[in-house]
């Protein structure tokens, strides 16, 4: 599970609880101009994940850590697919972040509003 919030012009993703261990990461900070959008996507966990390096992948239980697919680096932290949010980035180490949040709709609104504001 991840906590997603905006701190000034930065999108902060905090990995909570034991997922920190599996994902091998506790916090990601992305400048808002590098955030392209956020989408609630309950079906994303059924997609091929690619090669895990490093992290934990127990199909059906947890997907956490860094995965490589189609030449892209993707950060995952999802246990419950219904609460997955996809955050697309540009010019960052990760092409996208796929994280589980408490309220996907609220997170999507938060991110989309923040990037609309920062673009104007």
């Amino acid at each position, binding site marked *: 599970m991840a906590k997603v919030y905006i701190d000034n012009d930065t999108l902060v993703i905090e990995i909570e609880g034991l997922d920190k261990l599996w994902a091998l990461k506790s916090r990601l900070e992305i400048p808002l101009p590098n955030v392209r*959008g956020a*989408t609630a996507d*309950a079906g*994303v966990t059924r997609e091929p994940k690619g090669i895990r390096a490093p992290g934990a992948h127990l199909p059906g239980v947890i997907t956490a850590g860094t995965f490589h697919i189609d*030449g*892209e680096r993707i950060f995952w932290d999802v246990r419950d697919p219904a609460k997955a949010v996809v955050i*697309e980035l540009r010019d960052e180490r990760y*092409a*996208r972040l796929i994280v589980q949040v408490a309220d996907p709709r609220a997170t999507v609104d938060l991110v*989309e509003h923040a990037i609309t504001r920062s673009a104007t």
Partner: protein
Amino acid sequence: MGRPRAFDETEVIRAAVSLFACRAYDGISVDDLVTHLGVHRNSLYKVFGSKRGLYLAALRWHLEHQVRPLLAKVTAAPDPIRALRNMFVAGTANPDMDLLLLAMVERAPVDPEVAEEVARTMRGFDAAIDLALGDGAAAADDAPSPLAYALSAAILGLRLRTRTGVDAAGAGTVLFDRIHQPQP
């Protein structure tokens, strides 16, 4: 380096226009988009950034390629009032503006970028109607005449009622002819 895009972006956007024009935004999942648009999920994110990014691209395409050409035809017609009547309110008229309608109801109130796109198009709508009504002074100004505003609202409303299957045949032309009676 990622894989090259294996799809035609415009084709995908056109398919998205049809999908977004007939279903509620929140009712369309990314699974639906992947299925209906025939695009890989990763490519969808890579190209459009998010579902909202795709929606904005679809809305802009719809307004640019489907709605504005209708208005351009009205303003360029030798008889603009007749063109307006034929294209928007006659029984045979079937103006393609369903995504615009849905955007006005659903997304514009909650999304400032959608609101801006819709407002811009409606300004064009009002201006075209003002021109058709022969009130050039109002068209030159930013503010539409009250009659143009009311008429564009009526045109959109008629389209909404037609969508629900209510047979409104003739309603538009009756209204239109009332408003635009030939001057004696």
